């Protein structure tokens, strides 16, 4: 163990002496966290609307009015020319075109239903989906409103409080008559304000710490290989486990500090909740980092140059990160991808973090991901130890 102490001192000295590196380890995650915490949202605050009103009736004006009043749509231009509207959309000057056909009001009164054409710019798909639900919601509400005024004799007090669904984008039975009605009360657990940030920030933090940690470990051993000092160490009485431990511990410590700082920042400055046990969070982080760093070390023992090591590490990391359920839900992935996610430590840790921080999950609740991470940690370290001190 004494040997370990000396090796650790050397490792720490080498990291601390590299000024830019040190700055990166601590400053970069924080800066990125600040910026990115604000970036992650699907909220569409306002969509620029192009109105083509061919009816010019009270009701058509009412449609435009309701859309504007919702605060989500800004009437940006209007004309009778669809060509002009299309052009504006090509040029990205507007986000949607609303076309109200002639005879709109007449159809509504006489047939009880009328169409409105809405063309959304789906170039940026996520935004389009959200905008679509806003549009359907506004139109549904207006339908209900009209229902009570157009057929007052049939209404039995109170607008229809029915489970209107934006996703069907269409028929919303409104206006109660002597018919059954269901009152659906909706509750969103864990995130009453539907705050996307709380959901994303823990994940981003994990990403940042993982990237830095894994990359640095991946380059660590190769660096000594390139410098020639690795041979020197291999000739000494240092055993392989001690060697790997000495490589792992310093960066592990730094990564934990990074994570702690990031969490503190996330909680106290960004207001991310910490409903569960912090001890559990840090314990899980400790296990997870062994996996992430151990992986980097393993790569480092088999790569020949730092360039190679870094490239492989980055590529694998990219896959892990994009497929971790952080940006796109795992439930949305095809079966084989979901199966692969089981092998992805980032996915497990992100799931764990979210459960503990946002849902207040306890040890029993996260036993499965934690167990998997522990097993992976053992595997990674074994691989790294085995393949260190490789001869040519």
């Amino acid at each position: 163990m004494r040997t370990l102490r000396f090796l650790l001192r050397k490792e720490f000295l080498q990291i601390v002496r590299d000024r830019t590196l040190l700055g990166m380890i601590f400053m970069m995650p924080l800066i990125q966290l600040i910026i990115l915490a604000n970036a992650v949202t699907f909220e569409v605050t306002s969509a620029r609307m192009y109105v083509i009103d061919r009816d010019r009736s009270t009701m058509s004006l009412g449609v435009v009015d309701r859309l504007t009043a919702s605060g989500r749509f800004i009437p940006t231009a209007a004309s009778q020319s669809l060509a002009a509207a299309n052009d504006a959309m090509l040029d990205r000057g507007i986000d949607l075109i609303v076309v109200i056909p002639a005879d709109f009001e007449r159809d509504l009164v006489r047939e009880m239903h009328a169409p409105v054409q809405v063309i959304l710019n789906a170039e940026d798909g996520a935004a389009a989906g959200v905008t679509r639900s806003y549009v359907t919601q506004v139109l549904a509400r207006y339908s209900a409103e009209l229902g009570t005024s157009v057929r007052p004799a049939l209404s039995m007090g109170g607008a229809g409080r029915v489970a209107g669904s934006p996703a069907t984008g269409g028929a919303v039975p409104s206006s109660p008559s002597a018919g059954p009605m269901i009152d659906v009360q909706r509750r969103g657990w864990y995130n009453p304000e539907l705050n996307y940030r709380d959901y994303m920030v823990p994940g981003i933090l994990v990403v940042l710490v993982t990237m830095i940690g894994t990359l640095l470990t991946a380059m660590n051993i190769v660096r000594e290989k390139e410098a020639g000092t690795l041979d020197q160490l291999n000739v000494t009485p240092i055993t392989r486990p001690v060697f790997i431990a000495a490589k792992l511990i310093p960066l592990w410590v730094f990564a934990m500090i990074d994570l702690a700082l990031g969490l503190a920042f996330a909680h106290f400055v960004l207001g991310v909740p910490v409903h569960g046990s912090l001890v559990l969070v840090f314990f899980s982080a400790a296990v997870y980092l062994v996996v992430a760093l151990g992986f980097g070390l393993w790569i480092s023992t088999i790569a020949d140059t730092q360039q190679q090591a870094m490239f492989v590490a980055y590529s694998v990391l990219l896959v892990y990160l994009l497929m971790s359920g952080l940006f796109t839900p795992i439930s949305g992935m095809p079966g084989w991808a979901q199966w692969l996610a089981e092998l992805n430590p980032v996915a497990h840790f992100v799931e764990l973090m979210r459960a503990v921080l946002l849902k207040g999950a306890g040890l029993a609740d996260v036993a499965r991901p934690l167990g998997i991470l522990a097993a992976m940690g053992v595997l990674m370290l074994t691989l790294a130890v085995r393949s260190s001190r490789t001869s040519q």
Partner: protein
Amino acid sequence: MGSGALTLRAFVVKEIRHILRDRQTLAILILLPLAQVTLFGYALRNDVREIRIAFVDPKPDHATIALRSRFAGNGRFTVVSASSTSAGLAPLFRRGGADVALVFEPDFAAGLAHGSTARLLLISDAADPNTGSTMQAYASAVIAGYLAELRAGNAGVRIIPQIRMRYNPTLESVNLFVPGLIALVLTLVSALMTAISLSREKERGTLEILLVSPLRPWQIITGKVMPYLLLAFANAVTALLAAWLLFGVPFRGSVPLLLAASGLYTMVGLALGVVIAARTSSQRAAMVGALVGTMLPNALLSGMIFPISSLPDWLKAVTVVVPARWFIVIARGIMLKGVGIHYLWDELLILAGMLIVLMALAIRSFKPRLA
């Protein structure tokens, strides 16, 4: 400048040979991005495919059973539990065992029959508010469908929105991600590799040899960077091919223009790599800087996944300096909208401007060495 050009050519040839000799890295550099685009194209979806629902039904009756069987019969839903109390709900959700839960009141059918209101509690795991509200919406749609059937013939006024999603009618996730993925992949080869290659020379001291040679700084940089440009370009082409062949991503606009834009974007990445190499103290720092500094901004601030329009204003301003942001607009414009250069002038000029600024920075960073 005749001899200068020859020297440069010799230099470039040497660099290319140098890369070609490292077979492993070369194979990885070409195949890996391709594998990534393929992988992500298939795996990254924003859709909600399976919703796990739990029922709490204290007194099952014909109405609750009817509604429950609607969910059971709906391909999108998977029933994970049905119990008579809500006691097990909280632990179930905490474990991540269910996405939504439907809690019936005890006399549900009675409520429906007498013209009064029957109550339902629809709980969704809104930790992820995006999927949370989508799942909630799907569940609400099933309920509405059931209610509509009960109320058949009692329809009220309906404004029917006919919604068309232009440029991407099916909201195919892959169409949206692919331009961003290509940007990510290009950044890897361009910014990263250049940063490493140059900082390695800096560390070894071989860069000084070059600086003392007749080659001027801009020639050295160009020479070092040229092979990676070719490589990145090869990557872009293969990635686009994969997108087209495997995923049917549309290419409604001019492909040469897209390739030219990819080339331009790659060069910006290369220039960035050079600047990073110049400004960092070690190969290690250069790598970490290049990676951490480009990957997350590319993923999160480029509009690849999260729309730029959703960002707070100050952050929108920040995205202006993210080159990928402009490339994605151009790529989407050409691929999905089929627009020509006429509509993309702004973005192209911005990228060109970035290139010039970065190159100037790069050259300036290497000049002091000569003094």
